[in-house]
């Protein structure tokens, strides 16, 4: 027999001013399950809570109804009061007689009072059907997986590892460093990219809490927050890193030359190579697509010259598993291919290059030793035209969004050009200058004033060849005239795009992505580093175009989130989740279909007690279930019930009126 206590709150005059509280209490007393009904000025106050605690003990109550403000306001407060009195906190029901009665029916005191009584009846009805619930605690595997070894991945990995949490850093290419390693100097301070990046790369390699797995990819992720299991494919490098000293002899001796993607194919690398001199790990890998030994079975010079005998042509891809608790995705960005700009003669003219190609040229360690040249004839350019928004903000040919960093790096390029070629002149065609950021506007000014770059506001409509020059025709909107610039070299500020394999990755990780392929954050403003899937976070350009400061900031934010997640040995979780009654489950798996969190899986259980035959039933994954109840409503055999909102509870509310 249920023993319910009812506690009606005046909330000063907020409730009592409209609802006739004593009458309500009298009504409540008439209900047979009600053992005690009390009114008080402020139930949420300490004396109010004390009254509840005492009543629970004295009347051996089985459940408690508090008639006061919205449960969204004080449910937690009163639950605590219950547990303090040694009662299961989930035996509480709140009748919302303020927001739902006194405040909305101020002119009709009688109706408000009747309604309050009904609301309390309903709450009593529900509370009778309440069950004792206990917070669920989910174990956590304290290891983070970071996907992508660019500056974002590096920063996240280091921050997490510094908190003494093991990190597995997976990088697809042979070395970490990412795009930033390709840059020469960085805006707005012009400090050398390598100089600030390489120390961090070395830290990653040497950090006791970081496991660096280069030249590999994540191919599978199962489980749920705190308890993921990842499968990682290590691509065959054909070089035994454990014995290789990275002396580089093999690379010198290798006869095969291949376009060097690190230098944007402006020069060649060998078929056995380290992407760049400061690579981490500084061990070569063999490019299976070009190595004559692997292709035709002859050559093998590298093996002959390797004193350590580290070369192993028999090596095959290897799949390893890691148990992890959280994932940081930092897959960076790709560059947009400007081919659609046919009117510029892209693809026909060697002397039209992209910004990153220019970046490599002006890089001291680049293919041209830091001197920009014309790919066509190798001459040093004097007049260089930079065209911004190639692909960006272009619905017709490219993408709608702004790539955010082009304004800045183009200004940087103008300055760098001036540094490298003193008698050069930079012309910059732009739509707008977007220099929002610390020291950014000043930096653009510097490009305009110090290096006297000519900023022309307008689009370029045509590029055509005149002798060995490129004639760039565009509009200068500020003087409202068509201008033509005779250029030695044209640099296109191509847009940032999402990595082309982002959608595939998103699908295998179970996170969502937008129409461009950028991974979607859980909330654009309030949860910008989390994905909708608990325990998976986003850092850097994989979420949207960003500059280095923003990327690093987001990476550190991810680290903070991961550390927070791992702060305890287990994660506490609201017990209001679905449970399945195997006896009733017929295994139709409709719940599996509708669950928005893939929280329901199937398991095989014996057909009958001790029977060999198996049957399939659904199984709720406590860690993942968010308690929406979609599965409950689609379960025809009522095998699923949602704690806190069970059918009996709701029906009791309905019939209690």
């Amino acid at each position, binding site marked *: 027999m249920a023993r319910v206590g009812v506690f009606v709150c005046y909330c000063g005059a907020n409730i009592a001013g409209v609802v006739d509280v004593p009458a309500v209490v009298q009504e409540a007393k008439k209900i047979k399950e009600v053992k005690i009904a009390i009114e008080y000025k402020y139930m949420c106050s300490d004396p109010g809570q004390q009254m509840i605690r005492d009543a629970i003990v004295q009347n051996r109550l089985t459940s408690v109804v508090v008639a006061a403000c919205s449960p969204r306001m004080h449910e937690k407060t009163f639950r605590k009061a219950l547990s303090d009195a040694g009662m299961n906190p989930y035996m509480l029901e709140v009748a919302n007689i303020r927001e*739902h009665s006194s405040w909305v029916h101020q002119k009709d005191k009688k109706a408000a009072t009747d309604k309050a009584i009904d609301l309390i009846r309903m709450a009593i009805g529900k509370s009778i059907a309440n069950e004792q619930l206990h917070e669920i605690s989910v174990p956590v595997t304290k290891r983070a997986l970071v996907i992508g070894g660019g500056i974002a991945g590096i920063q996240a990995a280091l921050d997490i590892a510094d908190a003494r949490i093991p990190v597995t850093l997976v990088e697809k290419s042979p070395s970490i460093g990412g795009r930033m390693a390709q840059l020469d100097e960085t805006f707005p301070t012009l400090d050398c990219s390598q100089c600030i990046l390489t120390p961090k790369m070395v830290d990653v390699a040497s950090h006791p809490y970081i496991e660096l797995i280069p030249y590999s990819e994540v191919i599978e992720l199962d489980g749920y927050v705190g308890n993921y299991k990842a499968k990682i494919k290590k691509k065959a490098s054909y070089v035994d890193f454990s014995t290789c000293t990275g002396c580089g002899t093999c690379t010198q001796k290798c006869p095969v030359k291949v376009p060097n993607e690190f230098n944007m194919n402006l020069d060649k690398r060998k078929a056995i190579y380290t992407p760049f001199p400061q690579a981490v790990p500084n061990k070569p890998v063999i490019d299976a697509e070009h190595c004559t030994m692997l292709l035709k079975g002859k050559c093998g010079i590298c093996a002959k010259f390797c004193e350590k005998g580290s070369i192993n042509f028999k090596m095959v891809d290897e799949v390893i598993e890691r148990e992890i608790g959280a994932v940081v995705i930092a897959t960076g960005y790709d560059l947009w291919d400007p081919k659609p700009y046919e009117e510029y003669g892209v693809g026909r003219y060697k002397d039209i290059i992209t910004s990153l190609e220019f970046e490599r040229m002006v890089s001291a360690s680049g293919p041209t030793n830091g001197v920009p040249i014309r790919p066509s004839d190798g001459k040093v350019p004097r007049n260089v035209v930079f065209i911004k928004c190639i692909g960006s903000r272009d619905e017709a040919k490219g993408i709608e969004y702004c790539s955010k960093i082009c304004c800045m790096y183009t200004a940087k390029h103008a300055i760098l050009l001036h540094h490298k070629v003193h008698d050069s002149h930079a012309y910059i065609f732009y739509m707008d200058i977007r220099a929002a950021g610390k020291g950014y506007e000043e930096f653009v000014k510097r490009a305009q004033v110090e290096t006297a770059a000519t900023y022309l506001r307008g689009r370029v409509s045509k590029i055509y060849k005149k002798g060995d020059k490129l004639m760039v025709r565009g509009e200068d909107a500020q003087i409202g005239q068509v201008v033509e610039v005779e250029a030695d070299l044209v640099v296109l500020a191509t847009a940032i795009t999402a990595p082309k394999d982002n959608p595939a990755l998103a699908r295998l990780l179970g996170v969502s992505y937008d129409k461009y392929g950028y991974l979607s954050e859980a909330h654009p403003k309030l949860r910008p580093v989390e994905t909708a899937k608990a325990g998976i976070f986003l850092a850097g350009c994989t979420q949207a175009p960003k500059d280095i400061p923003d990327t690093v900031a987001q990476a550190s934010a991810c680290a903070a989130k991961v550390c927070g997640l791992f702060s305890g040995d287990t994660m506490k979780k609201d017990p209001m989740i679905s449970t399945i009654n195997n006896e009733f489950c017929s295994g139709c798996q409709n719940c599996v279909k509708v669950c928005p969190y893939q929280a329901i899986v199937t398991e095989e259980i014996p057909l009958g007690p001790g029977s060999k035959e198996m049957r399939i039933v659904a199984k709720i994954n406590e860690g993942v279930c968010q308690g929406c109840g979609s599965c409950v409503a689609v379960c025809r055999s009522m095998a699923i019930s949602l704690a806190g909102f069970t059918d009996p509870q709701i029906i009791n509310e309905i019939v209690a009126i």
Partner: protein
Amino acid sequence: METEVKEVKEKIVSVENPGITAPNGWQPVIIGILCNWCSYAGSDLTGTSRIQYPPNIRIIRVPCSSRVDPWFIIKSLQTTADGVLISGCHPGDCHYISGNYYARRRFLVTKKLLNFVGYHENRVQFSWVSAAEGPKFAKVVAKVTEDIKKLGPLYRYKKENF
């Protein structure tokens, strides 16, 4: 069916049983089932901003409109309620990503089926109310209450309340 509604003037007649007229001062009971994240929050906002609406509605809180099993509606109509209002998050805003889309399908079919077996279509109504739409919630409740007052009391299948 609207025509029948129009006839109703001074004395209220039950649409489903034209024979029966409502007792004087009859007030309909409306059960409102609200999702916790949008509509319930919205109804709280209506309260905090002191927007007044008719007192006939009795609100039940569920986590998501997708939790609402059609037989809650049937049950309500069979026992205590003269009408039912179910409210959830706007499409696309569901706190649980897709719950309200599944719910929407069930609601349409249930509504039509109830109407088919002889309940006036206005007995059961649905709305999307976001956490910010306090005023809208008041409007919705007012409209639903108004509709159901016109329909008169519901007697079908209530002869024997178990």
